[in-house]
């Protein structure tokens, strides 16, 4: 109402009163615009780097997820395809168990090609299909098994590896993995290393 009256004053009455109102409104708009633009800059800028603790939490949460989530509890097209092809022995395996089994098959059960490469490929694709929806694209990610039996490190999957040397933050989460092969054999323990960087 005040604005309308001012506008009407502006049109019908003296120039001085109109000018005061005119400047008052302009000033208010400029002040609001400054505050709005500053807030816009703050929330959309890349200056606000995520806290290191949040990245740790992401790495740990992802590690906990793949260690504890059973295959039967996952809804994933690639996993369904593996099950249909008979490439999953036990749906009560966790994701990490299944990856470890593919790794064990590749390195110890049938180490020659093409069995070796096909099992490693299964492990890689499983990690990729499970990881992509969870880890935001702005993060680089790698999944490595540190095999103490052979004294080798095998990186089963990596994303944006080229960005690792220039990363501002690199977080590593390590999990102990092992596999109960049969009644008399245990494979492991190995260290599975999950690396996230940005």
């Amino acid at each position, binding site marked *: 109402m005040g604005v309308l009256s001012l506008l009407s004053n502006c049109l019908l009455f003296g120039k001085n009163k109109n000018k*005061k109102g005119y*400047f008052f409104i302009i*000033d208010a708009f*400029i*002040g609001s615009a*400054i*505050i709005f*633009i*500053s*807030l816009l*800059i*703050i929330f959309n*800028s890349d*200056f*606000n*780097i995520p806290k290191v*603790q949040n990245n*740790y*939490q992401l790495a*740990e949460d992802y590690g*906990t997820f793949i*260690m504890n989530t059973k295959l039967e509890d996952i809804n994933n097209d690639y996993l369904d395809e593996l099950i249909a092809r008979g490439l999953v022995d036990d749906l009560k395996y966790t994701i990490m168990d299944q990856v470890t089994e593919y790794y064990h098959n590749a390195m110890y059960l049938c180490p020659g090609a093409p069995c070796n490469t096909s099992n490693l490929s299964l492990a890689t694709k499983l990690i990729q299909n499970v990881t992509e929806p969870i880890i935001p694209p702005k993060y680089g990610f790698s999944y490595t098994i*540190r095999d*103490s039996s052979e004294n080798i490190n095998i990186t089963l999957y990596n994303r944006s590896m080229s960005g690792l040397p220039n990363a501002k933050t690199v977080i590593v989460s*390590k*999990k*102990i993995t*092992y596999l*109960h092969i049969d*009644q*008399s*054999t*245990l494979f*492991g*323990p*190995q*260290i599975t290393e999950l690396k996230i960087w940005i």
Partner: protein
Amino acid sequence: MKIKKFKSNKKAVMFTLISILMAALFIAMFSYDNEVQLDDKIPSTNLRVKILDSYVRDFESYAEDSIDISAYRTLESLTNMKSISGEFFTEAIFNTTFSNCMKCGNTTCGAGVLISCGSPLITSTQNYSINDILFSIISTADSQLNIRTEYAINSIKIDQKYTPSDVQISLDISYNISDKTNSYASWHRRQTINKTISIIGLTDPTSSINTKGEYKQPIKMTDVCENDVTCWNLDKFIEFYDAHEFKDEDNSTSYLSRFWNSTKYSECCGIESMLDSENTKIINAKKSYTDHQYWNKDIACEDLLLFDDIATGFKLDRVVAIKYNITNEGTLLVCP
């Protein structure tokens, strides 16, 4: 008038300048990382505690799986050990030996002359005793996760109380898990882990020890006439005999009691198998070829029936033949 205008313009300008300065201040505050305050270390500590907690669960789970591996291999090793000498354990010595072998891989666990429990518990490449299996995870956690683990196995017990094809293992273990560099978090726990181990695939101790390892019969439960005592006939019995499998039998000894050559029948867990009469390691004798009877029980000649149609020289006790409904197929032996 001009001075008034100038004064009111000056106020407006000051207002705008202050707004800009405040906006710049806000941008500066949120754009740069703050100094890490003491309270900010709490999330890091929280995370470390979570890692340790996760390892505690891993350790417990690993200990449980270790029991499976170690117990299975220990049982087979004890059968192999006694098959060399052909002498059975006593029940008390079996329990002590089993406990020591499973814990340390030798019969005395450091309290006397060390005698290796042999294969498959101890192989050329690995020792599958509990101590050695747990050492793997402890050393991995120590070197890779900076976690210290100390443990003590208080007791190991074995029993067979429920089914013919399983034994029960009870492991009493105490452990202490802590962070190597800081003492803010540690776990102290004593727990008894109970596991049921399948004996399928293990060698029957009775035949193996009695023949000094010459006649070995792996334990595999038959599905012929499973849970149906009325289905037995000659064809079914021949199928059972040819497979050299075991069936559960109230009037027979259990797997575990065969280590000390017990003749006491087990209502819950007795197993029975037929010996291969055509095997050269089984001496042709006027005995019932039901395994526990052949080795431990003398049946009067008049009560034996000969079944040459099943296998040359195969004989059964009349009572057993009635049970399998094949009495009419047998012939009486010529007795002195």
